[in-house]
């Protein structure tokens, strides 16, 4: 304290100037951040929006953008209006009222500007199995269309693939995750360490030997073979996530179940499992979406077109009908995309919980 006195030096501060500067920098900063986010988000939003407008409006077969621009003309001002309402509104009631007004105006504008162009004709593939020929005949080409299986066949295959894969993964991962989390046994530590290696293991590198293996055991070109492969590849990740959820279950409830006379197996089923429903939901949704989207393995391992999944159906529709009719391709795309998005949105709360448990902070 003797060397340098810690006293305030009398400096005149221009508080009004500081306040002005703060106000200005704050506004500039906020606008810059929003401008940046909007700018980088346009390249993503625009194509998706285009896909939807084409699916519901294209008639000529060419990828038109008329409807896209017209609907943007309606929606962009609407979004800006909503934003302004949210900024200006003093309380929740007024904000909701403001939104209602904006929504009403938007709806009217949308119906008059875009409404007339909308139709469901592009979803012909849902009812007409040989839609490729129909589409081609519209532009005068009669031959050369690929023989597509019914879209419902592909849809069913995808459901079977994703669904059974999910059931197996969740069952096996719950059992293994619980054992690794709660049981002491020789070799537990090395097993957990190797689980981490498998968790990060790039399964894509195994595609060549896997193909040969499926061929040798006769499971090539069967859904069952692909299901097993996907299960195995999902498993390390799923076990890892499930172990994390089991780790978080308090020991006390399991101990009291044992004291109450349950065996460990009974305690697992009756007491612990209900505690990790969030984990089970997260792992299920994740596995299901993975199976629903899977492309490379089904493309490589499935050959017959009765075995096509939605991803293959989409791929071949794009390959065949593209250049002839963008509308139908978009409609298939929307049909394929929506289940994924709905699942993600519905389960988002659970998916966020699994993040990457166990990584150092």
């Amino acid at each position, binding site marked *: 304290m003797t060397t340098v006195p810690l006293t305030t030096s009398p400096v005149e501060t221009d508080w009004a100037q500081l306040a002005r500067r703060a106000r200005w920098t704050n506004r500039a*900063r*906020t606008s810059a*951040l*929003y401008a*940046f*986010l909007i700018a980088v988000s346009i*390249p*993503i*939003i625009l*194509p998706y929006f285009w896909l939807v407008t084409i699916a519901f409006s294209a008639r000529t077969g060419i*990828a038109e953008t008329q409807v896209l621009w017209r609907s943007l003309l309606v929606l962009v001002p609407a979004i800006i209006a909503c934003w302004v309402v949210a900024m200006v509104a003093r309380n929740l009631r007024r904000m909701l009222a403001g939104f209602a007004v904006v929504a009403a105006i938007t709806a009217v504008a949308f119906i008059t500007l875009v409404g007339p162009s909308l139709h469901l004709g592009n979803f012909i593939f849902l009812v007409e199995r040989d839609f490729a020929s129909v589409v081609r005949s519209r532009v005068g080409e009669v031959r050369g269309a690929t023989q597509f299986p019914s879209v419902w066949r592909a849809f069913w295959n995808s459901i079977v693939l994703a669904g059974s894969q999910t059931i197996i993964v969740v069952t*096996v991962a719950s*059992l*293994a995750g619980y*054992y690794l989390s709660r*049981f*002491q046994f020789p070799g537990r530590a090395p097993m*957990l360490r190797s689980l*981490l*290696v498998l968790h*990060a*293991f*790039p399964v*894509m*590198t*195994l*595609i*060549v*030997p*896997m*193909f*040969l*293996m499926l*061929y040798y055991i006769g499971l090539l070109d069967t859904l069952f073979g692909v299901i*097993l492969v996907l299960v*195995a590849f999902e*498993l390390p990740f799923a*076990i890892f996530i499930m172990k994390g959820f089991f780790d978080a279950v308090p*020991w006390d409830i399991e*101990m009291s179940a*044992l004291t109450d006379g349950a065996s*460990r*197996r009974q305690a697992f089923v009756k007491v612990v499992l209900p505690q990790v429903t969030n984990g089970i939901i997260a792992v299920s949704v994740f596995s299901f979406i993975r199976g629903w989207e899977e*492309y*490379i393995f089904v493309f490589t391992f499935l050959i017959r077109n009765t075995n096509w999944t*939605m*991803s293959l159906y*989409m*791929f071949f529709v794009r390959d065949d009908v593209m250049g002839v009719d*963008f509308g139908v391709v978009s409609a298939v*795309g929307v049909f*394929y*995309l929506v289940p*994924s998005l709905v699942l993600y949105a519905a389960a988002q709360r659970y998916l*966020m919980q699994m993040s*990457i448990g*166990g*990584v*150092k*902070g």
Partner: protein
Amino acid sequence: MKSRAWWRQRVNFVIFLGPAILLTVFFFVVPVLIDIAVSFTDLGRSLRVTRFTTEHYERVFGGDRRLTDVMALTFIYVLGTLALFNVTFGLVLALITTSIDKVSGGFFRGVWLLPRMSPSVLYILLWVWVVNPSQYGLLNQILMTVFGLEQPLDLLTTAPIALIIISNGFIGASMGMIIFTSAIRGIPEHLFHAARVDGAGSLAIVWYITLPALRWPISFITIYQALSLLVSFEYILLLTKGGPFYDTTVYALYIYRRAFQSGQYGYGAALSLFLIVIGIAVALLGWRFFDMKRLLQNPRIEVQ
């Protein structure tokens, strides 16, 4: 005669871990062994082995001139995507979306998650339409009407490498974004308050407070995303099929094309082996990122 407890332990082990171990051994260990075995054979399209040979390895070390180009391309692709998108842009998105209000931040994160949430076939379909070389492609429409471009661009032939980097980066950025966002959320709020009171501006706070706290997540994302970029080829296969010619054929895709397009399964297996080794090495490196103490924490019930 073993005790009942001994038996119960065995039975539990089989019930709980049996299926997982069986699947893992069968689909991880066996394929690796098959891969090693096949890489020493002349297995081709006929799927029949006629002789054993080391010629694939000779090809890898000198005989395959295309391989050098492929590796150079792979290097550019992995490094470029990682540096531009997976780490940098992911970080930028996480920093910005956490510094604006919650609802808007969540909305923009949602937008950037869209590519990851879409099935790969569909996502690439959109890219194909956007960069369509005719004047109907979305990009060309915008460039020609808004920016007055005269001739439509054909990015698929003129800038295919940039295209695969961007299309993969749009997906890759979201992983970093999610991980970094939750890491930023985990930083105690009073540290930011303290720094502001201490005189730090927004950028100084990012530099002195946020980034040091993200050291682990950043290195985690760097390593893991590098590996995933190195081994994945799905989007490239769908977008450019590795072309024009071999211009966008990265190492992993090169394996795929050799094995399934040229039918050289033996050579593909040999090429795979290098990727498998790298994969295992990175996975082992991954141990450093996990809190082993927590992971290996001992169970507190001793009864079996």
